[in-house]
């Protein structure tokens, strides 16, 4: 290795080697766990493809055991992948410039023959490459292990945080956002420890906000059942929790207990007729919306990361550094 790349490698090699070792260990564990899982599926002749949704209609002791055995470890892997952006922001981003500013070594680095542009670009590019590789591998491991038992009965669904935040392009984009946020915090705060705290707060806050507002990005589908026909089952979809009655004009009444039933109450048909309801509805995000949500959040994370990198470049061009 030559020039600034050698310096970037020398300063980040502890992180790279530690990260690679952890990733290797996790990969080995996932491979073993998934092999056990597929062995169990084939030895018990479980038709996982035909068993999707809450109402998969395939409840058996074997299937429940399959899910019981894998839910916990899958959640652990999902948590690791979900936490990765924070970990990267704290341990990789915050010291990337923060430690140089804190210890004064930036004066050493910036008075050598190479300019600040190449110095920063190389070290940030190396960190970016490692972030993309690390987060992509973890996201792929989550998807690979989860896919046979996805969206089944009481298993993990695509919209669960353990899955949605832990896989797909949004997980990689979020890791890049974490790196950029950590780097910017280190540069602006000039000290590693407070920068670590700041990036922890920032990434967790953005994640919480996105999880809270996710269902507002796009409109759910309206599933209608006429008369007193049973409502369509949710299956692998993600219910918004909103359901109720429709009248002849198509107006929605989000009053689930408008026609309760029980001792001494009119039956559903009578009640609906009395109140002028002609059907029932619920709103649901079908499982195909996974990718829509993923691309939206990928865009948000990449946009935030781009803004932060622009801020970093702007600040680095100024003198003094803040």
């Amino acid at each position: 290795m030559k020039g600034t790349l050698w310096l970037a490698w020398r300063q980040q090699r502890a992180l790279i080697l530690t990260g690679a070792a952890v990733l290797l260990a996790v990969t080995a564990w996932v491979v073993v766990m998934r092999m056990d899982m597929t062995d169990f599926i084939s030895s018990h002749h479980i038709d996982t493809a035909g068993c999707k949704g809450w109402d998969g209609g395939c409840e058996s002791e074997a299937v429940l055991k399959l899910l019981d055995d894998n839910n916990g470890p899958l959640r652990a892997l999902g948590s690791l992948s979900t936490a990765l952006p924070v970990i990267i922001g704290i341990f990789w981003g915050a010291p990337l410039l923060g430690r140089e500013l804190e210890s004064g070594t930036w004066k050493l680095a910036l008075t050598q023959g190479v300019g600040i542009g190449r110095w920063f670009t190389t070290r940030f590019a190396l960190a970016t490459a490692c972030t993309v590789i690390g987060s992509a591998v973890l996201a792929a491991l989550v998807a690979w292990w989860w896919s046979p038992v996805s969206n089944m009965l009481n298993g993990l669904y695509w919209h669960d945080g353990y899955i949605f935040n832990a896989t797909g392009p949004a997980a990689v984009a979020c890791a890049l956002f974490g790196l950029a946020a950590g780097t910017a915090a280190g540069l602006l705060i000039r000290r590693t420890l407070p920068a670590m705290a700041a990036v922890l707060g920032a990434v967790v806050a953005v994640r919480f906000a996105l999880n809270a507002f996710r269902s507002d990005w796009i409109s759910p589908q309206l599933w209608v059942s006429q008369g007193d026909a049973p409502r369509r089952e949710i299956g692998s979809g993600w219910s918004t929790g909103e359901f109720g009655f429709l009248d002849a004009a198509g107006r929605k009444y989000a009053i689930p207990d408008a026609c309760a039933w029980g001792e001494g109450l009119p039956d559903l048909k009578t009640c609906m007729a009395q109140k002028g309801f002609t059907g029932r509805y619920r709103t649901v995000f079908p499982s195909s919306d996974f990718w829509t949500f993923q691309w939206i959040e990928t865009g948000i994370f990449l946009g935030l990361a781009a803004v932060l990198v622009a801020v970093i470049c702007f600040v680095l061009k100024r003198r003094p550094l803040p």
Partner: protein
Amino acid sequence: MTDDPTTALRATRLGRRFRGGWALRDCDFALPAGRITALVGPNGAGKSTLFHLATGLLRPTSGDLRVFGAEPGSQAARDRTAFLAQDKPLYPRFTVDETLRFGRELNGDWDHASAERIVRAGNIPLDARVGALSPGQATRVALALAFGKRPDLLLLDEPLADLDPLVRIEAMGLVMAEVADRGTTVVMSSHVLSELENACDHVLLLKQGAVRLDGDTQRLCDTHVRVTGLADPATDDGLPPDVDRATVVEAAVTGRQVHALLRHSDWSPAEPWIVENPSLEDLLLAYLRSDQPAEAAGAAA
């Protein structure tokens, strides 16, 4: 402005303001190439600010500073300048060998052999961690890193602070040997005036962000006189009335005695006065103590 090759560092109405006020203001000077300049001044006089401006780590608020005619921080200026910051930053987790490799990888023109020679001459193992070195050894490594760059201008901010007396001579000896070898221009700041006396041949004295003294040390000593005599009770400062007050740098009365430093004076005292040329240290101390030059302050404004 001409890019005079005999000028290493030229300031023109140079100023730098921080939130707390001006650290340097309206400074004009031209430090000669091939010389060893002492940058002297009390704490907060703007010495470190000047070093940071000269390396491009800071930009001036007003005016202009040039390193061999180039803008500080530009490629041309960076290639010719080496800077040893006050806290002598090094990467504590690097080995000495890696520290020298850092210099090689980040500089186009790098003299690895001489950098390694400087380190070996200090009996510093190349595989030692920089964080485990003594302050003296770390200074030697930092100097090796600076010299390996083959700089034309070497900027040393308090290079001897925190070093024991033996190591101070050793470090200063290294710098002087580099100057003897390559004719490097050196600008160094220090609070220990006696250490500068034998090493420096030019002096730039800053006080409150302004240049108070700038010149060849020998000529400055030759053009100032230290006079001691019987105080004249009729005057405020104890000096006889025929002394041109514009030439008085400082004057102090102790009992019946007056002790003063005069510059460019053609005052020829009557017999009982003791008149001698000041040492550099004496001269610098007088200027550091003196608040008198309202004239100088007026000149700087």
